[in-house]
């Protein structure tokens, strides 16, 4: 075995996911929440690619590419929402954007 095994990558992946979820839950700025979401998605991507290498199967890398495309779509919509919020002079605070709450 040359270099770190899959377990080392999974530790980094789980830590990234935890850091990202902390950011999503603690921060109130929608921009930082979106950035933290990207960290969570990348943590999942790292696990997918590590397992693809471990099992010698490229399907994991294909899945990671699909996750990247979904992340790009999510950023486009999320940033559109943030710009729309700013245009309507709403506070950029996810706690105050609660009109749709049931």
């Amino acid at each position, binding site marked *: 075995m040359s270099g770190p095994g899959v377990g080392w990558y999974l530790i980094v992946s789980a830590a990234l996911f935890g850091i990202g979820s902390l950011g999503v*839950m603690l*921060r*109130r700025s929608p921009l930082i929440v979106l950035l933290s979401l990207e960290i969570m998605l990348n943590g999942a991507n790292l696990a997918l690619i590590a397992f693809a290498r471990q099992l010698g199967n490229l399907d994991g890398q294909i899945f990671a590419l699909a996750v990247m495309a979904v992340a790009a779509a999510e950023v486009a919509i999320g940033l559109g929402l943030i710009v729309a919020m700013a245009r309507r002079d709403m506070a950029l605070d996810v706690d105050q954007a609660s009109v749709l709450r049931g």
Partner: protein
Amino acid sequence: MGNVLVWIVWFLAAGACLGSGIAVVSLTNPFYSALALIGNLASLAVLYLLLAAEFLAAAQVLVYAGAVMVMFVFVIAYLGGRADAPWAGGSPVMQTAAVVAAVALLVEVVVVLGLAWGDDLKDSAEVSDSFGSPAAIGELFLTDHLLAFEITSIVLLVAAIGGVVLGTTHEKGRP
């Protein structure tokens, strides 16, 4: 010798990855957060290279660190001072609950991985040089995963249309 080099590169990339991730979550200026995320994505690309995923490493730098982050920086520049994100979260109870929930999520991930740990994860598989090359990925995308490929293009089209609709101003209907 090459083995030691791989470990050194791994530790540098993983450390940069986690450090910049913490910076993204903890900085109050979203512009610096976005810059830290670019560093995070670049160090992740190094980890992808170590995992024989050349095409994904290149796509990570081009699509993520390039295109997606440019969108972020443009929006942060458009918002100007309004984008500043001071730390003020909710009540202390909510903050504590958020930390507890995040730690619980992390523990869950670790436990699930530990339960799934088996003999087939001891040694990694032997892979050929073409593993993770653009040709291999492209071939899989156009054969086994054609449906995923087409659906991905529809997702991106819908997101592009949605971004345009959200960004359009309606002179009459504007509240």
